[in-house]
């Protein structure tokens, strides 16, 4: 049963890693941002 448990945890870790890729929103460095079309 240990094997099942650890497999579940390993799968969970992989799924968290994969899922987190969808959540990460990176922004470019502030000095490189283009605000030409912004509302400001």
């Amino acid at each position, binding site marked *: 049963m240990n094997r099942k448990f650890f497999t579940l945890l390993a799968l969970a870790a992989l799924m*968290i890693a994969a899922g987190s890729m969808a959540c990460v929103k990176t922004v470019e460095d*502030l000095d490189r941002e283009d605000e030409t079309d912004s509302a400001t």
Partner: protein
Amino acid sequence: MAAAGESAPGTGNLSSGPSDMSPEPDTPDLSSGPSPTQTVSLAPRVVLLALLLLIALVLLPQLGFGLVYDDGWTLVANGFLRVPGELGVLFSPEAVARNIPDAVRPGLVLFDMLSYQLVGLDPRAHHALSILLHLGVCAALAAWLRRLGAPLALWASSLALFGLLAIHAEAIAVVSFHEDLLAALLAVLAALTASAAVRRARAWPLALVAVLLSLGACAMKQSAAAIAPLWLLTEALAPWRARRPWPRLLGLGLALLLGAAALIGFSWWLHGSISPYGAENLRLYANRVGLAPVLAMSTQIHLGYLQQMVLPFGLAPEYSDRGASWTDPATLLASAALLALLAYGIACARRRPLVTLAIAGAFILALPTSSLAAMPNMRADRFMYLPSVPVCIGLAALALALGRRLAARLARPGLLFAPIAALAILQGAVLVGTAFTYRSNNQLWATARRIDPGSARAQAATGELLLANLDQTSEAQRRDLLLTRVETHCEIAERHDPDYELPQLCFARLAAARKDWREAHRRFAAALALSPDRNARILAGLAQTSLDLPDHTEADRRRFALEALEPGLVRYPYSPELHEVAGQIFHRLGEPLRALEHYRRARILAPERGQPLLGELSLLLDLGLPTAAHTLVAAHRQTWLATDPIDRTALIARHRDALRLFAPSMILSADLVGVFANEP
């Protein structure tokens, strides 16, 4: 850890009362069938370690994050951490008089001082500490639940969920929010110790430890005082084992409160009131619009917290303070929803004590940060770190109950843990993704601005960050464009909050970058008039720009500079920035001894900063002491090498000239060139 069947122990029944107790709650049924002969058990220690390892792995990317947000105030520019010999000041009213950051949380300052002395300003080590503290909270929570008699499936699921809960991203990823982790760690340990004490014949030795732990938790963050009523509620509900006698419970509950009361008394002695923020402080939104609109908004905020804990979307590093009307449909709905939830929780007390614990427990723990007592920020994800403990227990029990039904209906025992696994994976993925918001100040404020464009703080901070990038820009057209963008952010910030000092500071630094000293001085003065605290850098700017004011006599400029500087040094004696500016000003005013004294103090208060070292070297060269300059550089190798190479090269050239003039016999042995292998 797949238990099966309705009768399996350790499946976290929502109505789990004493009748649901397993004779060996820590020995779960892990078989695929209900027969005890087929069961294979997992050791609780293995489960605990494996789950902690999973949580640590998930948090590992945070080791690459920088120091952000309030880290500058509490760690990077907090000179008090560099003078452990003056620690005694922390426990006297002088701590407030000298504006020691977070003086009202002496435990936290003590921890920060210790961690700084151990690892300096290494962000990796500080983030590793954050992860360790979070793992400590998880382990303490598991230990407490086990002590209370919770079955393995429930405590392990609660631990996994708490460890991976997305709303914890801010508390774990920002070093200066160690306060939340430390307060939670000590508070849960206090509850664990009290639970152990209440089950012993001789309770008082452990009760004493519980009092100290409760005191320690409140010394990290006063909101941890709510652990006492939570502990009493948990023991009174006794979801898994028979309730202990009431006199014992009340005695231990009072003991836990004693720790909190001691800290509140200390705060009273320190500030002369319970609130450390002052009655007129405009940072407290309640002081601007009154308590009623703030409390109305607080109901909406707390419904939002609940949604974020159950379904993790809408998490943000910045929430603008806003009031609301009690007749707003949103307020009415939020109030009705929260009241209904509380009523349901209380009504379940006998039949489903776990539901009561989850709901009423979360209400109790959320109370101190619910704006009933005015606070500078009405909403922050980190406020939910400790209150999420009962929520996680409730969600874990709910997911396990759902899994049990699913497994029974589909006759697939393996599905028992499917809901909790799915929930933990969802939370963990969002936790990792959200945590990346906090990897740098650029990322943080850009995200804050995107999520909440109406935040004056986010707009002003963006302006200041853009200015910080200005040094790297030499092209005139690009520089002008950048300054125009800064001006836009400053204007938006000022429009959103004209009574806030940060937009004024943004304008002041912009004017300084444009060398418009009169406007810079005016804006620094405006910032000072609006700012209720943390004024060291404003006073430094005010003093610095005074010396360049046009249309004033030299005597007036000197007077203006000293008028800002001298009270500043009295009020902020631990500010390295202020001492550095004092060194520069006295250097310019031709008072070398005073300048030297302040440069040296600035170096002691922030040995990592290069500017005081460069200033002191420049002064020594002006005084004709090139050998002393050489000795100084040799003694501060790392700081010297970390300074701007252009400044360094200029000083090396000046040093050579000074050697020729004042110590020609030392040219070969005291030349800075070649002292270090990578010197230009």
